């Protein structure tokens, strides 16, 4: 899931200081599960904003809305009237949700309530760890199910580097060296020989380096793509 955390409330107070009518919109998907933008956290944020406004004697009206998943047009559409009536929106969805709102209501100021961090999961209640870098070309089969792209500070494909000390990364003693983990895992599985061949340079074009990415499943699309329409025209 996408893991995010709440922005410091002081920062959101600054962002919203000039607005008289705010709507804070939470998201019921990933950010609920990671305690960043679900109903519990969104209510608390709204209350904090109200308390700050009252302390500064700023008259402001702040309402809270919850949404199933802000990254879907159909789910956000019913917010239309309420968003139209607000001066600004604080979205406590991940960056995806914020952008969906901004795209749908381009004339409205849509503010992020969260810092979206990574794709990962909880390793215990209250602690989330990054696991996936979204590189677009998964190497986990070769690395014992430990991702070097997300979990090595250098995203090395032939590790470890010289900074690996006692199984920890030189960046911080709190971070495990991903390549130590890969070694240990493959050793456990009796597959250390997998590490012998040198991994060739990775094609990073499916990753972020290739610009904004898009996944298209033509078989699922309901409207025929432009190119197809054009070619049918020329054939006909």
């Amino acid at each position: 899931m996408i893991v995010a955390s709440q922005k410091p409330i002081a920062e959101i107070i600054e962002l919203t200081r000039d607005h008289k009518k705010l709507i804070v919109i939470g998201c019921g998907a990933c950010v609920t599960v990671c305690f960043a933008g679900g109903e519990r956290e969104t209510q608390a944020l709204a209350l904090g904003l109200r308390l700050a406004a009252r302390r500064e004697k700023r008259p402001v009206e702040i309402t809270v809305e919850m949404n199933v998943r802000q990254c879907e047009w159909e789910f956000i559409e019913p917010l239309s009237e309420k968003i139209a009536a607000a001066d600004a929106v604080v979205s406590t969805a991940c960056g995806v949700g914020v952008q969906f709102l901004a795209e749908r209501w381009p004339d409205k100021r849509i503010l992020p309530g969260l810092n979206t961090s990574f794709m990962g999961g909880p390793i215990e209640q209250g602690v989330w760890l990054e696991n996936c870098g979204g590189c677009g070309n998964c190497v986990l089969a070769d690395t014992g199910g430990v991702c070097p792209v997300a979990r090595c500070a250098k995203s090395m494909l032939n590790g470890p580097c010289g900074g690996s000390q006692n199984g920890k990364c030189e960046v911080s003693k709190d971070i495990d060296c991903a390549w130590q983990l890969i070694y240990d895992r493959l050793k456990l599985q009796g597959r250390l020989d997998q590490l012998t061949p040198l991994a060739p340079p990775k094609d990073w074009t499916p990753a972020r380096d290739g610009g904004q990415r898009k996944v298209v499943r033509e078989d699922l699309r309901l409207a025929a793509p432009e190119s197809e329409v054009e070619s049918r025209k020329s054939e006909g």
Partner: protein
Amino acid sequence: MNIKTLANWPAPPCQAACPVQTDARRYVALIAQERYEEALDVIMAANPLPSVIGRICAHPCEQACRRGSVEEPIAICHLKRFVTDKLGYSDGKIKVKQVPKTKNKSIAVIGSGPSGLTAAHDLARQGYGVTIYEKHPLPGGMLRYGILDYRLPPEVLQSDIDSILAVGIKLKCAVDIGREVDFQELINEYDAVLIAAGLAVSRSVPLAGVDLGGVHLAVPVLEAINEGRPVELGNDVIVIGGGNVAVDVARSIRRLGDKTVKMVCLEARDEMPAHDWEIEDAMTEGVEIHCSWGPDKIVGEGGRVAGLEFKECTCVFDEERRFNPRFDESKRNIMGADTIILAIGQGSELSFLKRAGVKLTDRGQIDFDRATMRTSHPEVFAAGEVVTGPGAAIGAIANGHRAAEAIAAYLEEREPAYQQDLTPVGELPTAISGVMWKTPRRWMPRLEDDKRLKSFSEVELGYSEEDALREAQRCLACTAGAVVDEPKCAACLTCVRVCPYGVPEMIGDKAYMDPLTCQSCGICASECPAQAITVKMTTEHLLPLQTGIDSIEAEDERTSKSPVTVGFVCQFGHVWGADRTFDAAGNLPDNVRFVRVLCPARLAPADILRAFEDGAERVFVTICGPNFCHYKTGNGLTERRLDYVRSILDGAGIGGDKLVSYPIDQNTSLAKIVEEMSS
């Protein structure tokens, strides 16, 4: 058990076991929070005789209480009495409003025992004119004449009756229907008649020697003692019978001077129909109990009782649990006695009904349809022991309610809406009872053994407030716990992880808390990031309801010189402090508001922030001391959650230091907490 819908949510066992379905769970919780007036309202919604029932109830609720599998059941009956004592209800200090007669129909009730009083009360409150006819000089039926003052002081009974009558019921005492007033006259005068005459006549038994001087029936003896009339009793008394009436007679006679009292009954000790606690009291008071003996003949001398000859009773009931005693004629025993009292059962004298066309059965009982509460005469109904046979007073009250509904439905030409049985939650699994915080039941202080026999003073002396609070805290709040709003559940597993009892489980992608095991603490509800969990019991703890704070402006104006402090106070911790109770609040500044919560761990961050939004300048939360939390992990969770709320208060410029937590122990007092907050 897997119950997915609220429609078939199980009832707490106490309520399901109560013949009138008193919401005991709720009133016990209200007592734990010192909300006594509300507790009395809950009690009286089901029962118009709270002071009486708080003393003499057979309390099937306690037999059903699931705390019994942890150590001992909650003293629900004692707690009921505590409320009536504390508020002065049993002293007549609470005045009941008269209900105006708004319906042009009227009902006669024969008998002023618990069923008659209850039916009269229900009907009068609906606006019917009701007149009660009582044979005795004073009302109450067996409550007055069958139960002695040491269990139920007459002034307590009178107070409850006065409150019932105050609704607007006429009472005519010393009127014997059937002898002094013809039953037909009542039928002519009233739109409906209810026979609730009880079982006021002691049965005799065809025993050799039963006509000898010194042989008495139980009920006349009890009546005489109750009315203070002299009874001719010797010094060596045998009471025949093993029921509650026999015990009452025996205990009463022990109070009439230095007399030897023996109870002799057919049943073995564990078969005796009298309540265990009554039998134990009788034994403490010096009554000898002789079980498994059947009377064979009364031995006489000069026309008076000299003793009783017994034979051993080998078996009281047959295979089909019918009363069919068998004896071993070879095993015999003779006891000397100068007085014998027969307490072997009661009946009623109903022959007068026949003249008015009310059919009786071959055995002289009313021909009665339990479904409709009717006799063979369309306008004549019956209720209470006269039709149900002997039973507990609370059962007679339940029957009175049912009769009132039957009569009202008849007069209003509609179908009756009787109370439906509740399905109780199952037994507490040992996995849960084994990890419960254990604390013994608080027994009510009692008159010292050596003082009991010197008078008819009440034996049970009442709870102190501390007793009541600590006892009420023991309640497990069965089936008042977590309910998931499924569409909101994000399947985050938080509830599964945080529950101290391991209750939540995932059914598919939705969380589910089985009411069989949920302990109602609310920890999952406040942790749930989707706020998809509500706690049935604690939704009432909203700030405005308890503090009256509902408007910032109004509050600012009122307290411009003294900012409001709100304290969220743990229901379990508050009596452990040095000043013990909210009584201390009386000495505190009036800008301090308390919100009682079951456990502060059930406060979501927004609950605390709302206190600030609603006008509080400071908020404190009491938690239990370091070594105690009713719900095991509540203290730590609360502390961590308060840190999160403080971060928001800091960010908002309010200051996290405006939110303080206080562990309560014997050295802390609410007064001191408030003083520290203000300095």
